[in-house]
């Protein structure tokens, strides 16, 4: 019974309590002072017209109604959602594939794991610069590689290599491609989750002479489903944020008109370039509402799988 006792709690010993609060204090100061208060201020400004230069004036819900009619905002919203729908499953799948491939001990696995994690460590700006070069339609390594064996700047298949930064679809694909390599955190979690799976289940499967695919489909996937779902939701939330630097540095929201203008970039542009801070704040509000919705989904998932996945 001792072992099953839930979270450790001490009696309300005032000395210990005071010390614990003291330990929490710097974080609380930071959390409230540097995050919650500023965020609250900004969200309050969502109901004002504010250009950063003159005092804000109260406009109620005008900004939100204007957002609904704003074609650029709608495009940005759509872009963000499409990104989440396409990139997030891909990221999770890639991470899952790598985790399954690399969970065993084998020669070279350590190096491969390190290699998988490294892109995550590259500073965003440097990462953007790198891809700016990789994507260069004429001189970039990707297209040079694609052109290998072909003639006159065509690929072997006789088609033009993708014009990464000038065609809307290619550009979106490019941003997604960029994001695929930075799934290091997801990978680590999945790796740990895969290792936590009970070994006897797999031994059982081996006795049954199940094929690799069967094992994956009937054992690994169902067992890891809760973790996968959680990671997907987390990634979807994060995708609202991590589209910013690629779009800012690499594509600048283009190709025209707004192929890679994501919500994050939209907020930055309207707020800081067009000085419509109140309006941008309203878009932020929408962004956060979306996040809350995603979090609610996640919360339900957690509740559903609590037994599975003890956080």
């Amino acid at each position, binding site marked *: 019974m001792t072992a099953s006792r839930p*979270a*450790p709690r*001490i009696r*309300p010993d005032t000395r210990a309590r005071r*010390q*614990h*609060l003291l*330990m*929490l204090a*710097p*974080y609380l100061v*930071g*959390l*409230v*002072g*540097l*995050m*919650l208060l*500023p*965020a609250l201020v*900004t*969200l309050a400004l969502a109901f004002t017209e504010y250009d950063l230069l003159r005092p804000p004036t109260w406009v109620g819900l005008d900004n939100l109604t204007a957002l609904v009619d704003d074609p650029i905002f709608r495009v940005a919203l759509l872009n963000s959602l499409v990104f989440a729908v396409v990139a997030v499953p891909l990221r999770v799948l*890639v991470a899952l594939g790598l985790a399954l491939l690399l969970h065993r001990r084998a020669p070279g696995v350590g190096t*491969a*794991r390190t*290699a*998988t*994690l*490294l*892109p*995550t*460590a*590259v*500073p*965003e*700006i440097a*990462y953007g*610069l*790198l891809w700016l*070069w*990789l994507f*260069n339609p004429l*001189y970039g*390594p990707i297209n*040079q590689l694609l052109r290998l064996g072909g003639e006159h700047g065509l690929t072997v298949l006789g088609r033009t290599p993708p014009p990464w930064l000038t065609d809307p679809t290619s550009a979106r694909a490019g941003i997604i491609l960029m994001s*695929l*390599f930075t799934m290091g*955190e997801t990978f680590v979690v999945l790796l740990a989750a895969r*290792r936590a799976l009970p070994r006897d289940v797999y031994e059982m499967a081996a006795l049954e002479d199940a094929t690799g695919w069967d094992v994956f489909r009937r054992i690994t996937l169902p067992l890891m489903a809760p973790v996968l779902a959680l990671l997907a939701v987390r990634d979807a939330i994060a995708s609202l*944020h991590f589209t*910013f630097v690629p779009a800012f*540095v690499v594509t600048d929201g283009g190709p025209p008109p707004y192929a890679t203008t994501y919500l*994050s970039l939209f*907020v*930055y542009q309207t707020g800081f370039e067009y000085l419509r801070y109140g309006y*941008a704040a309203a878009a*932020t509000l929408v962004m*956060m509402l979306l996040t*809350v919705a995603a*979090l609610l989904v996640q919360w339900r998932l957690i509740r559903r799988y609590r037994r599975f996945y003890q956080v």
Partner: protein
Amino acid sequence: MLLVAGSLTEPGLPPSPTPQLVPDPLSTTGYQRAVELGGLLRASLNSVLVAVLAVPLSVLVAALAGFALARLAPRTTTVVVAASLVALMVPATALLVPRFAIFRFLGLTDTLVPLIAPALLGTSPLYVLVYYLAFRAVPADLYDACLVADLSPLRTWWRVALPLVRPVTAGITALTFVLTWSNFLDPLIYVYDRDLFTLPLALRSLSLLDPTNFPVFLAGAVLATVPALVVFALAQRRFLRPDD
């Protein structure tokens, strides 16, 4: 295939930022120009200074807060954890202006302090939550043993809890370092003085160079990436090993 691409792309970065078709005979000029134009040396120093101060402070704050959360009454914990989750959803752009006002009020604009200040919230509330979960996973008996031995919470944290979550600390240190190192929006807004520019900001000015100047900005990117890679590689040895 993706794995190969993923593993080769990054490590393949430092040696040859020069493709075959465009002749660029002087490969070190890229580095020279990057250093001259971007003021990369000075910027690196600033980045190092910020990282050296911010990363330990950040890990300290996160570890302390995570521990306190794991040990405080459930009600307090719930409130703080919920607030942290909310904070995680706030986009960085929403914070720039109000934070600027705060730092100006404190007279700290145009110093490196605003770049270090996020350390106060452990760089990201996520890391506090990770610590919270890690400390909560420590067997309750160990904490009780400390109580019986009359350890103050602070000493319990230092002597017992922290050593037990070393892999977590390694991971969080690495992530904090990378985040701090690549922080870009904050210096863009808060730092005026060229002498206080950090690496990402210097890189930003390089990113405006023409695409054919890629040896220059790739050189900059490489310079900026190497320290982060080293830290990450060192740390990941620690946080991947224990379950090996």
